[in-house]
């Protein structure tokens, strides 16, 4: 992944996006509730085979997930290099707590490690349809503090 020139926005290729998804474990899922309001939740995840897997307790996320069109995002900002990046995944979410086949059965062994306390016995997979990313080096003035 080349460093972008200051002031330029670089579109990341899918390979770079996949590398970033594999090398991180905290992202945010966005869902639409029944009143067409978008909701965002931070989750710890594991990414492989084009699927983002996270664990959750019964609640809003689990109720809205089955068959839902969702988005998932990770981002980073390096204050020394002043480089920012983000990856957005659009996909369809499914409850894989009770796996129906070999692929989802395998996912249940992926190392998904929630940092927040509490039991999270339900597993959710987001099948990625579209992965896009961008990266930039900021040319904005540093804050004068």
């Amino acid at each position: 992944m080349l460093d972008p020139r200051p002031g330029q926005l670089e579109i990341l290729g899918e390979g770079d996006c996949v590398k970033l998804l594999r090398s991180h474990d905290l992202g945010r899922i966005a869902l639409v509730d029944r009143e067409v309001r978008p909701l965002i939740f931070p989750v710890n995840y594991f990414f492989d085979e084009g699927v983002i897997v996270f664990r959750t307790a019964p609640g809003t996320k689990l109720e809205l997930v089955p068959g839902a069109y969702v988005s998932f995002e990770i981002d980073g900002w390096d204050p020394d290099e002043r480089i920012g990046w983000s990856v957005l995944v659009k996909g369809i979410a499914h409850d894989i707590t009770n796996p129906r086949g070999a692929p989802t059965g395998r996912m249940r062994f992926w190392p998904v490690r929630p940092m927040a306390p509490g039991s999270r016995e339900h597993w959710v997979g987001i099948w990625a349809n579209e992965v896009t990313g961008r990266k930039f080096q900021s040319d904005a003035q540093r804050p004068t503090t």
Partner: protein
Amino acid sequence: MKANEPVAELEEIPEAECLEILGQHSLGRIAIVVDGQPQIFPVNYAMSGRIIAFRTAAGSKLSYAPRSKVSFEIDKYDSGVGWSVMVQGVAVDATEAFDDVSWAARGAAPRPLAPGAKPHWVAIEARKITGRRFRVGA
């Protein structure tokens, strides 16, 4: 930031403190619904009371956010503590309007870090603010 204070295993952050935390940060993410599917965009923002202001170029955020229900989120995980704050509200295009929300948004001076002209201002008037905090690895 109160993130270093001892916390219960998992606790709700009261609204007043969520607003305080929002005021201490400048990078968040907005979720908007585009053709039935939610999308997430990272933005640099600034607060003015209960109003979250950010700047943007013409594009999805400007086309779909104004007059829509949106969510906004910030989070952080370090020094053994994780927290997140979620805001639900309605977005308005504050670029030229003379209502109170737009005035407040334009006075909030968000500083976009990403390059490119961002001549449009968007304001999110917070209706519901929730937060949670927990000990990492507790």
